[in-house]
């Protein structure tokens, strides 16, 4: 991987951020949707029995929204729109490298999503939740999740005809993301498979690294030392998905509309 030029990437990202802000719908998707689930923290008595479960659900939902909207859907629609406008092709005639062009497109949404993950910490603590048990692994979870969904956006863009079509073509990835959470009530035989989805792995990781919940628990049963081992399997699943997504994205990247 080549190194990125900071001035070039930031200069392009600034223009992309302007475009996100200028489109009201994009902005709502990118900012409001990830922050909204944090309101769930207000529901339910803080400190009472079982409120940890509700807290974890709110954090997981907020992170999932942050991965899906500012990162995945936003990058997908920006890529497709810029490609159709021939902006990507034009940029590739200049000094910016392919990696800089892609990074700059992902950066505004990435910053919003990262901000959501960071803001969630003080907000949750003020509203009576515990501080993250293993902040380092929580940070790793967030970053890998966001990279994974950015790569999925690149891959999805390759077979998305235009910005309208993205409403449909985004469905497989969105389903893959929410399946883990939807499947909580499913029988164990089914859950064995749904646990292997990126959404389920991310959910497990947040529950382990922030709340110290072992599988299925809603009370803290893990201590700091336990979190490393408990995070192993879901982290492996998440990284495997990220590698797959990057592989698919690299194979399928298209820079101009099909003529």
């Amino acid at each position, binding site marked *: 991987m080549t190194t990125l030029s900071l001035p070039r990437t930031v200069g392009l990202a600034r223009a992309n951020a*302007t475009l996100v802000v200028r489109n009201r719908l994009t902005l709502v998707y990118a900012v409001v949707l990830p922050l909204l689930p944090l309101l769930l923290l207000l529901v339910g008595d803080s400190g009472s029995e079982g409120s940890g479960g509700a807290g974890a659900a709110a954090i997981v939902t907020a992170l999932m929204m942050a991965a899906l909207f500012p990162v995945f859907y936003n990058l997908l629609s920006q890529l497709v729109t810029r490609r159709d406008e021939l*902006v990507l092709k034009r940029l590739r005639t*200049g*000094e910016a490298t392919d990696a800089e062009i892609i990074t700059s497109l992902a950066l505004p949404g990435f910053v919003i999503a990262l901000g959501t993950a960071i803001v969630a910490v003080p907000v949750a603590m003020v509203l009576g939740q515990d501080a993250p048990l293993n902040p380092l692994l929580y940070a790793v979870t967030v970053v890998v999740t966001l990279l994974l969904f950015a790569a999925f956006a690149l891959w999805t863009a390759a077979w998305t005809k235009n910005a309208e079509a993205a409403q449909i073509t985004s469905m497989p990835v969105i389903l893959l993301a929410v399946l883990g959470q939807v499947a909580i009530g499913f029988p164990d035989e089914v859950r064995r498979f749904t646990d292997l989805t990126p959404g389920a792995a991310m959910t497990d990781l947040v529950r382990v690294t922030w709340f110290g919940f072992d599988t299925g628990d809603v009370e803290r049963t893990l201590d700091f030392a336990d979190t490393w081992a408990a995070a192993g399997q879901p982290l492996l699943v998440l990284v495997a998905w990220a590698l797959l997504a990057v592989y698919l994205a690299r194979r399928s990247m298209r820079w101009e509309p099909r003529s």
Partner: protein
Amino acid sequence: MTTHAPPGPHIEVRDLRRSYGSGTTAFEAVRGIDLVVEPGTVVALLGTNGAGKTSALEVVEGLAPPTAGEVRVLGLDPVADRAEVRRRTGVLLQTSGFPADLTVGETLAMWAATMTVPRPVADALADLDLADRVDVRVRSLSGGELRRLDLACTLLGEPEVVLLDEPTTGLDPESRRRVWDLVARLRGRGCSVLLTTHHLEEAETLADRVAIMHAGRIVREGTPAELGADLPATIRFEGTPAELPGLPDPAALPAAVRVTTEHGSTTVESTDLQVTLTALLAAAAEGGVRLEGLDARSATLESVFLAIASGAHSDDRALEGADR
């Protein structure tokens, strides 16, 4: 500018081929072309739509690898030495591509941010007469303004080599003239320019050398004058020989090769314009004939181009024969 091009051509294309698709659906858009652009010169790739001009130019721009053959820009490989080549090259694509919701100023600022040494944005705006459009969104620009914004980006890094794909297509005559002036100034500064066009006057006005492309090949190449040299010059005047009894038969004039009459006017084709014209004028003076609407000219690029386009079919058949 601190870097200097190595001695030798700015652009060198050798036996370039470019195919699309594979197997039975493969289509060879560029079928082995050679092209050289020396520093400080303008070369025009002239051809009809579908001749392969853009396909060839995209390889020079480094946007696509050649299927076969070799391309050197400033002595470098536009794909492998991308960073170095891009820093010193300005590209204008056939269709402009900018985000519709950015303003002119924001677009230029974005473009400047990608460059190692950009000119001041204000200068670029003034150069292309866009200063009063700086806060206008790209979606509200006219076609001519959009093209000028695109050119401003192309020239923002003071490139040594400029590649322009149909720079004036769709522009009004005034904008077109402005672009021509700009290209002339670039050449004056020692830049080399490779442009594609299907506008004959553009090639004739701007280019030091013209390469006429047809069906993926360069069929003729030379200065506009050289290209015309092999074709007959024309003398035209109103009235048919029958209507001008004082005049001898034009076909009998020295160096005249063909005489046609159309819409009541006569056209004499000549292999030596001066000889034929002198004889015609002497005969007219002697016979007391006034030649209305007299027009005499060397072969133009247009006549060369039309000759190639009309010879296209027999040429294609010859190619198919060779392929079998």
